């Protein structure tokens, strides 16, 4: 054995032989494989990250703008300040809601009846009067004029202008249309076959209905034959049954028979319905209503708008939503047919409201602006008035409390444990437990905060102070562990140098070790703070999930924080809140990026000093 190994080492071609080249090639192959795997892993990570960002941004960007109506409001002196006092208190008490609503009525005078007028006011924010009042209070010289005051639209109306309510499609028209009226319900005829598309849509709907009924009939037929089998089987059982059972079985038989009857009646009714539908499909010339389960068709001619309600041959019958200016025939380039692809039944905005909004837009009154409300308001149930400032302030107060508590305590603890504490079982035990604390689920800290800070100490509920204290507890282990690692990485030669010329231990630490460890400590702290900024669960436990309209003015005011705000908005059904959720996520991410940038800057600053 010794001989062979000796011989192996004696060979001169040990690194040059064919086998050696093979071994080398294998090594390079493995390295290349590993490199490609690594690149793949990075690629997958980048892909998912960009997918996430893309989705969030796609949802969020719409929430950063909002549509306003520059409402021309007639501000009569007699309505607002009849005695001409000029006193803001008197002006503030005027009924601006009524004034604003009157302006709306003037703007869209064809809204008649209570119901239509309510729909009209519903186009605007419920804060209509308040926003007009604020504008007047800001500039009392508007009184006596007709001022153009920007007022928020309702959130659904805003979504319509952002294209989120229904897709719109213009249909090419070729004929000349003539009408028999300008108001109410009118008949419209086209010289060309322009309305065929409506007839097609209606007949497609009828066919779908017929198919649905046919499916139902088939199902009923199956259950009928099953019932038939059960009835005959029951008959046989009654024949062979003992006297005691006969009555019970007979009862069952009666039930089966009545079920069979019901099914037969229903089937017959459905078959009749199918026949009726088929007749309607084939009878092209007769009158047929346009149902609200299919796309809506709006005709625009002579300055007005008509919603198609039914077809009669090549004529259409429609409700006038905006009166026509005249009853003249309109050539192909003077009228248009628009489809609102989403059926009226499936959306929150009626055809009438959409036509009105188009009317406002055509007058140049609608303006899309930066959504400043989103950054300057607190929480609200109304999407157009909901903002994120309350949550931002809550987050800032919470973070300040967390930082003030956890940074000095954490760094102090780390310095003591690393530089001063004797290494015995007590400190080992503490060390193990600090490491364990870092792994404790955050909700446990929330429960602790609830039990100790709220119930035992009686601190205020929902307050950033308590939230900050809870998050400080949660962040402490992270800061201690990071700080200890940073202190440990300072070379011992620096400590020896300082001790060697007679510096005390505290001087050694504060003058030399701590400044050198500072970049690492700051990194750990920012990491912990970023984690705390995104924490939701423990704050739910101490009541920071409350619906708080006012922007908190201090750490003792009730508040909520950004991640909790996101959590709450994600729960709301309105699509406008879904967009706000994404926008709030972007704001939170922006804060995290700012914090990390701050960490980098601080680190550079500290490193440059040395």
């Amino acid at each position: 054995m010794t001989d062979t190994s000796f011989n192996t080492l004696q060979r001169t071609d040990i690194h040059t032989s064919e086998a050696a080249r093979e071994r080398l090639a294998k090594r390079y192959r493995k390295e290349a494989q590993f490199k490609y795997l690594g690149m793949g892993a990075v690629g997958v990570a980048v892909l998912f990250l960009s997918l996430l960002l893309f989705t969030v941004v796609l949802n969020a960007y719409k929430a950063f703008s909002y549509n306003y109506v520059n409402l021309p409001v007639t501000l009569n002196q007699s309505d607002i300040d009849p005695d001409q006092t000029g006193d803001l208190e008197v002006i503030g008490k005027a009924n601006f809601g009524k004034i604003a609503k009157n302006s709306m009525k003037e703007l869209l005078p064809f809204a008649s009846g209570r119901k239509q007028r309510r729909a009209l006011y519903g186009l605007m924010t419920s804060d209509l009067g308040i926003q007009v009042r604020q504008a007047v209070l800001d500039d009392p010289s508007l009184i006596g004029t007709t001022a153009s005051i920007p007022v928020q639209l309702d959130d659904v109306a805003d979504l319509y202008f952002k294209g989120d309510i229904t897709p719109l499609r213009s249909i090419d028209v070729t004929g000349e249309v003539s009408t028999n009226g300008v108001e109410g319900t009118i008949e419209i005829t086209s010289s060309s076959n322009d309305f065929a598309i409506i007839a097609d849509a209606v007949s497609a709907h009828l066919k779908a209905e017929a198919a649905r009924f046919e499916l139902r009939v088939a199902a009923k037929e199956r259950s009928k034959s099953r019932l038939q089998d059960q009835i005959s089987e029951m008959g046989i059982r009654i024949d062979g049954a003992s006297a005691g059972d006969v009555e019970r079985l007979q009862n069952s038989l009666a039930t089966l028979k009545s079920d069979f009857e019901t099914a037969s009646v229903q089937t017959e009714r459905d078959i009749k319905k199918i026949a009726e539908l088929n007749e309607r499909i084939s009878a092209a010339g007769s009158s047929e209503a346009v149902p609200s389960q299919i796309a809506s068709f709006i005709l625009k001619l002579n300055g007005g708008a008509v919603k198609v309600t039914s077809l009669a041959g090549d004529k259409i019958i429609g409700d006038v939503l905006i009166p026509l200016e005249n009853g003249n025939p309109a050539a192909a380039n003077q009228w248009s047919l628009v489809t609102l692809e989403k059926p009226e039944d499936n959306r929150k905005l009626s055809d009438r409201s959409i036509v009105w909004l188009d009317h406002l837009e055509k007058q140049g009154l609608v303006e899309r602006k930066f959504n400043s409300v989103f950054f300057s308001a607190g929480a609200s149930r109304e999407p157009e008035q909901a903002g994120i400032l309350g949550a931002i302030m809550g987050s800032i107060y919470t973070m300040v409390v967390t930082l003030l508590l956890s940074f000095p305590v954490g760094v102090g603890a780390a310095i003591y444990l690393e530089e001063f504490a004797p290494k015995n079982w007590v400190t080992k035990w503490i060390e193990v437990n600090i490491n364990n604390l870092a792994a404790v689920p955050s909700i446990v800290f929330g429960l602790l905060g609830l039990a100790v800070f709220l119930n035992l100490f009686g601190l205020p509920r929902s307050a950033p102070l308590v939230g900050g204290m809870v998050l400080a507890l949660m962040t402490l282990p992270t800061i201690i562990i990071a700080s200890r690692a940073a202190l440990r990485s300072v070379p011992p030669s620096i400590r020896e140098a300082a001790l060697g010329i007679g510096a005390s231990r505290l001087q050694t630490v504060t003058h030399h070790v701590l400044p050198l460890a500072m970049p690492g400590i700051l990194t750990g702290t920012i990491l912990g703070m970023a984690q705390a900024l995104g924490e939701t669960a423990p704050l739910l436990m101490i009541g920071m999930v409350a619906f708080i309209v006012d922007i908190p003015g201090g750490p003792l005011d009730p508040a909520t924080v950004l991640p909790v705000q996101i959590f709450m908005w994600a729960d709301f059904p309105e699509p406008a809140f879904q967009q706000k959720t994404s926008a709030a996520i972007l704001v939170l991410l922006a804060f995290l990026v700012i914090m990390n940038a701050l960490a980098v800057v601080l680190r550079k600053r500290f490193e440059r000093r040395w």
Partner: protein
Amino acid sequence: MSAEIKPKMRGEKVSVHYGDKQALFDVDLDVVDRQVTALIGPSGCGKSTFLRCLNRMNDTIDICNVDGHITLDGRDIYHKDVDVVELRARVGMVFQKPNPFPKSIFENVAYGPRIHGFVRHKDEFEEIVATSLQRAGLWEEVKDRLDAPGTGLSGGQQQRLCIARAIAVNPEVILMDEPCSALDPIATAKVEELIDELRTNYTIVIVTHSMQQAARVSQRTAFFHLGYLVEEGNTDDIFTSPTDPRTQDYITGRIG
């Protein structure tokens, strides 16, 4: 000869344990005032351990335990009344690897006087920094760039800066733990020259692996082996006529 020379520091029955392991066994050694004492011996013989006992640097090692007596001017430095900060101000130290603070050259030298607080004014600081750098033989090289970082100097300059830093506190004894082991021959020659000059003002104890260095710079030499002080005496005597066969073997290169 040692009878008429007054010892600056004296170790009596010094034993050191690192946990269960004993590193020094009953060492008795005198350090003579204003002379260079060289501690030589193979690796792991306890010479650095003994050196670190002289300014209680071993205190920073938790498992280290020192027995016996070490006196400075007749006072036991391990007595509980002795302040370790004051001791280290009187017994300065220069380490194996140059370890300047990551600060400016000026701050490196001024740091000791600053923490001990015996200098207050800017002029005094400038004077003490200049004097220390001059004594350390570095002044001519760095006088124009005192604000430059100390870590930017060459290895030999860094070590002389560390010596200047130690001198600035005005110690009575300077301990040097293999000060030239990380330096090239030219830098080594400069530091050795410096040690010879410093002898007029300071008592110096130097640990070295190089017997030539010991022979060149020291007046007295102590040979350590496996934790025991084997032999000590005048450098000339040790190198020319050692009494112990182990010393003989070491200086002729047979052990170590």
